């Protein structure tokens, strides 16, 4: 299988997440949303030749860097942190994760914005 573009993967992961968001299947939803957002951030970073590393928390740092350098208008680092923590709680403990003051729909909308930005970066 040839490697897919990260922006395409981000869109596909988001499409897998949305049905789970609708029925509030937290494990499915936060896992796919997290993967979609990470792939979107990596896609934008690669487009701007910014190195992304394997650790999740370093990808969040990259998301902040993309925002601080005005490449992304929105800072997605906190959303990455929330989703990373949420997926660990959902998968490892089987509990409903605490999303703070956001709903799953709010987070999904934010991830969709990031995916659209990744697609735009790839199209340029």
């Amino acid at each position: 299988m040839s490697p897919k573009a990260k922006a395409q993967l981000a869109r596909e992961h988001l499409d897998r997440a949305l049905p789970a968001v609708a029925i509030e299947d937290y494990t499915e939803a936060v896992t796919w949303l997290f993967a979609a957002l990470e792939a979107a951030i990596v896609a934008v970073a690669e487009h701007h030749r910014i190195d992304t590393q394997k650790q999740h928390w370093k990808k969040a740092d990259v998301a902040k860097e993309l925002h601080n350098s005005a490449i992304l208008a929105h800072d997605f680092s906190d959303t990455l942190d929330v989703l990373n923590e949420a997926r660990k709680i959902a998968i490892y403990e089987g509990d409903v994760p605490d999303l703070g003051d956001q709903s799953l729909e709010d987070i999904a909308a934010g991830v969709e914005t990031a995916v659209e930005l990744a697609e735009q970066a790839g199209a340029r």
Partner: protein
Amino acid sequence: MNVKDVLAAPWASSTEDDAWRRKVEADADQIERCLPPELEQLHGLVAERARLVNAKALILSGSTARRRRTAISDLDYHLVGPRIETKDLSRELDVHALSEEKLESELLAGDDFVQWSLRFGCVVFDDGTVRNGLRLIAERRLWPDIDRKRAHAAKSLHLAARFVDTGDEDGAVVQVRTALSLASRARLLGAGVFPLSRAELPAQLQAIGHVQAAQALAATIYGSPSLAELAAGVRYGEELVAAMGEPTNVAGYPEQ
């Protein structure tokens, strides 16, 4: 360490104050040895903030406490007390805050992470809460809920298989590593062996005869496995779960 070691732990007895003091001192030494220099300041800030909120106990947990950090390790703590502010600190920090009551209820409900921290974590400070928790484990012969772990592993393996199918290598490595870790922990618990840190799981799996699963898990921790190798890893994980037999619906201490 296995179940019997914990049962024999001297601090299980309320009269063994000296033994407990030695354990806390040994943990302090271990923390000095196991913390990489670049994490010492972060550790100091966590301990300081935990004391400032009058937390009952703080435990350094996870691979750091076992001196088995890998490139993907977080810095994990269990904090018994109010949450502390960490947003201004490194993102690799993972502080799991819970109340004393929650600690006890999690132990009784068969949560393996809390029990792991009590058994293998390093006590940073403790007002007696950690000691009471260890006493509870010993007196009630508590063992993590194997069926719950197996169910989480099965769901995670299913998710990992679908991730592999997406062609996202980076995402698939994470999911397969997570699923194999869960399946390994479930299998080891079912065999009466308490799972250690993630980097130690392959050796523990090998010791009970699951060589291929051990190699597959190690590849997700240290290597860059291909999608085909990850798909095989999922199958080995499924074999681990299948080797456990039917669910028992009994959250209890395994026979040794």
